[in-house]
């Protein structure tokens, strides 16, 4: 009762849960243009996940795996029956490929041909992490498939779960559920660090049992996949920025409901991997072009952001593509020999950046 009254007051005054404040991009997340300035850019429309197998990057787009064969352009390598949900390299055993259909296939290594099944009923695999004995999966939502992530956000669901598949028996076991779109996994010793997108946080789940504990909270965007860094720590893809307007719409139940029902999805007021392509998309005040220019600080529903995390999973540096940039919607990344390959799904491009510059704000 008291809680309801307090919520009503909060709603009236815009405080507490009704507050639409978004943390500023500051400190390690101070904006830059590193993603746009990357010298190496390999276009790959629809690119989603990326991994490094035997020293060369492999990327998924739709139902196809691509390999950067000669280092200049993407070549189709394997094609599957269903959309590829996510991929991860397992040492020299090969590449674990999770398909939307529920199959987990090992491709291109010593374990080529082995396969597993995703536990029954999971339709929204968003991320994978592997160890010699197990495969860990994140299921974003119990009700929506992965491409409907915007809908899941608008519904403010928290029905995601984490799973462990034993590589010997192939049996699946649920580690946690009730999560708000878990979208990235990283193994860290005896625990699993995962990103919880709709709660804008990273959390740690002890594999020995226990409840998840927040590692880093109140990120200025929606955190997605995690990838290991070569000298410890990890990389975090932030696939879309938070914005005051979206936070506000999330709290406006009537508008949200009608928007979901009446407005075509590409034109929703919702974060996206790439915005600003159609004039039917919502426009915000700061995004009005002045003297023919879109300001880099303009509020946007999409952006590119890849964050370097230290061993404690705290941000130390970041790579950005701002409102006027062209490397939006970072969904995955993989580091190899001092270079990090970043898949920008929104703009359908993979860029390669130096993983460490040795200068101020260095990624190491």
């Amino acid at each position, binding site marked *: 009762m008291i809680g309801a009254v307090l919520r009503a007051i909060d709603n009236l005054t815009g405080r507490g849960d009704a507050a639409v404040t978004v943390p500023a991009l500051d400190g390690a997340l101070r904006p830059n243009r590193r993603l746009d300035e990357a010298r190496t850019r390999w276009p790959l429309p629809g690119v989603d996940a990326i991994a490094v197998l035997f020293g060369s990057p492999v990327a998924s787009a739709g139902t196809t795996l691509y390999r950067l064969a000669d280092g200049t352009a993407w070549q189709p390598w394997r094609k599957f029956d269903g959309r590829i949900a996510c991929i991860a390299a397992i040492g020299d055993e090969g590449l674990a490929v999770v398909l939307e259909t529920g199959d987990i296939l090992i491709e291109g290594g010593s374990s080529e041909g082995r396969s597993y099944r995703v536990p029954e009923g999971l339709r929204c695999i968003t991320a994978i992490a592997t160890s010699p004995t197990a495969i860990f999966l994140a299921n974003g939502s119990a009700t929506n498939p992965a491409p409907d992530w915007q809908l899941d956000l608008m519904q403010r669901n928290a029905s995601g779960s984490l799973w462990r598949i034993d590589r010997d028996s192939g049996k699946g076991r649920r580690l946690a559920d009730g999560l708000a779109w878990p979208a990235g996994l990283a193994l860290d010793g005896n625990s699993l660090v995962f990103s919880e997108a709709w709660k804008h946080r990273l959390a740690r789940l002890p594999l020995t049992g226990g409840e998840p504990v927040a590692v880093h909270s109140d990120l200025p965007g929606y955190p997605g996949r995690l990838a290991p860094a070569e000298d410890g720590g990890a990389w975090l893809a932030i696939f879309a920025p938070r914005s*005051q307007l979206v936070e506000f719409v999330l709290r406006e139940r*009537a*508008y949200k409901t*009608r928007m979901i029902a009446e407005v075509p999805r590409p034109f929703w007021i919702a974060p996206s991997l790439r915005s600003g392509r159609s004039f*039917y998309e919502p426009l915000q005040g700061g995004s*009005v*072009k002045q003297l*023919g220019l879109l300001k880099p600080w303009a509020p946007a529903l999409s952006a590119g952001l890849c964050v370097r995390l230290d061993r404690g999973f705290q941000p130390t540096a970041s790579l950005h593509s701002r409102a006027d940039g062209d490397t939006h919607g970072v969904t995955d990344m993989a580091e190899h020999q001092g270079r990090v390959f970043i898949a920008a799904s929104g703009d359908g491009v993979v860029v390669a950046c130096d993983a460490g510059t040795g200068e101020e704000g260095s990624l190491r």
Partner: protein
Amino acid sequence: MSVSDTLMRWRYRAVPDHLLGEILTKRWIDNAIPVLILMAVVTVFGSAIPDFFGASSLANLLRQWGEFSLLVLALMIVMVAGGIDLSVGSTFALGNIVALTLMSVAEWTMPAAIAATIACGAAVGLVNGILVGYLRLRAFLTTLVTLIIVRAIVDMLLLKYSVAIAGGFIDSDAWYYLGEGFLLGMPFSVFMTLVIAAILHLVLSRTRAGWHILATGGSRRSSHNVGIPVRRVVCITYVVSGALCALAGLLFASRLGGAGADTGIGLEITALTAAVLGGNSLGGGRGSAVKALIGAITVMIMVNSMVRLGVSSGANSLLLGLVLLAAVAIDVRWLKNRHKLLSNVYVSPTFAPLPPAPATEGDSPYALNDKLRPVELIGLGAIDGPEDVILDDDDHIYAGNRTGDIVRFLAPDYKEQEIYAHIGGRPLGMAFAPDGALLVCVGGMGLYRVTKDREVEKLTDETNRSLFTIIDDSRLRLADDLDVAPDGRIYFSEATVRYDMHEWPVDSLEARGNGRIICYDPNTNTTQTILKNLVFPNGICMTHDGQSFLFAETWACRVSRYYFAGPKKGKVEPVIPNLPGYPDNINRASDGTFWLALVGMRTPSVDLSMRMPGFRKRMARRIAPDEWLYPNINTGCVVRFDETGQILDVMWDLGGENHPMITSMREHKGHLYIGGISNNRIGRLKLDGADTGWTGPKSYWGRT
């Protein structure tokens, strides 16, 4: 339309939300709380005391109120100038004893006695004024000291003359008339107080002297800096205060005819309570005669009612003290929070549904194309925001810019530019008058003319005040576009009367009919509003029949036609009822049709929000303007249509590379010239098959 939409429509029709905010912008709203308190006091004591509203009770109250109000007015004058006068009670007593002594002991004539009494009070005020005003002593301490000294003088006078006064008799009907007579059905003292209050009100609100007083109280330093003789102003307020107090004492003397040691004791606190309770700020700069009167009535009723209720005198003072405390607290909080309240309630979006937007693909007349791709750019990077462009007989281009200039690009290659005239404000729509002068709507200023000798003249900056609006809509805030009728009358649009130029996004949130179309007649030099409650009226263009013009309503996404002459005079007809974007300027095309600029395109999210005013209102309150949902004005197009509203041609620039924003276009000798309010360029497009001899001035005035 769904049931909830229908309900919403009626809700927003029935309740004029915007009025609350408009009332709060008014200065007189400061009186709201004092009036409420007065009403509460009347209700409470009116019901607690039997016969409260009886004739004898009221008459008695009124007489006392007359004298008391003079004291409060005296205090108000000083407070408004930023000071305080604690000696009002003593001066009142001094006026009383001086008047009685002069009349009954010295047996002066009445006019002489009145003049001397008032002079006596003024002298006390002058002492205060010199000490506080010229010698810059602290007002509080200084007047506290005068309170004591004057009280001492009164006591000395009492000692000497009280017996004589008690024994003497004043043989003058006129003298008793002051205290006991009636004029126009009210006690004379009340009549006089009302007259003095009216004079003070006029002085404070309508005269230079009054403004000086208010300015001094509002900010002494700033007043000094602008050349107001601050010291003299302060001194004069004390003199006036002293004179008014003595006058009150005189009335008291006439009414009661006796001098006692307790006359006027504690009156300064009662008067101060009344003044502050009425809403006169202790900090100065804010106050009026009406506030003083309201406060005086409230306190008078309270004090008298307490006496009649038989409350002991200690409790009476206690109540006064508490009321004073509360009044000061309210004064401070109100001053501090009024603006916050105003900013929270002023923006009041309304239910403004639009029909489903026409498509921009397939066989729609608005289907996308790349016709604007070959636009040549003029003055790229050399002009800041040409909202409108116009060309003269010699092919020179004129365009307004953000810094208030009219810039001229010189034919034939438009490489060179010059500042043709500097007006200030934000030059928007332009047109040529029959004599070749350039007529300009200037946002924030009004309607201006730049003659061929480059002289800038104001044509009009105000129109008739609407009778039933709360905000004063006589001043032009956002004159937008104009056109000239064949008889020389100038019709121009004012986009909104509620916001200034740079606040247009807020008006788009409201989407109410805040705008109007106004006619300026140069023959009689008069300005008249002819159409009201339009939704951001923007472009205006004369049709070819000489009896009507077309006008665009931006947030309503429609173009209509208004007849100002002929058989359909006064009628408005829809021409294009539903556009896929937000219309801006309209201009004539060479083949008798019209060009229309769509400054932006409708987005489904905004169209939905137009049906949900509460959503827009909360958005305006919760999130920063840079984050607001805007109409999409990053992409626009040029539309050609005829008088029947048929769409003949649409020209797009996909991606907005050349023209992110199109607010106007002007055909001239086979080319189309394009302006945009946030662009840094002017576009020039060759039109295929257009009349290469056609110019705007020729079309309007038949010249070559």
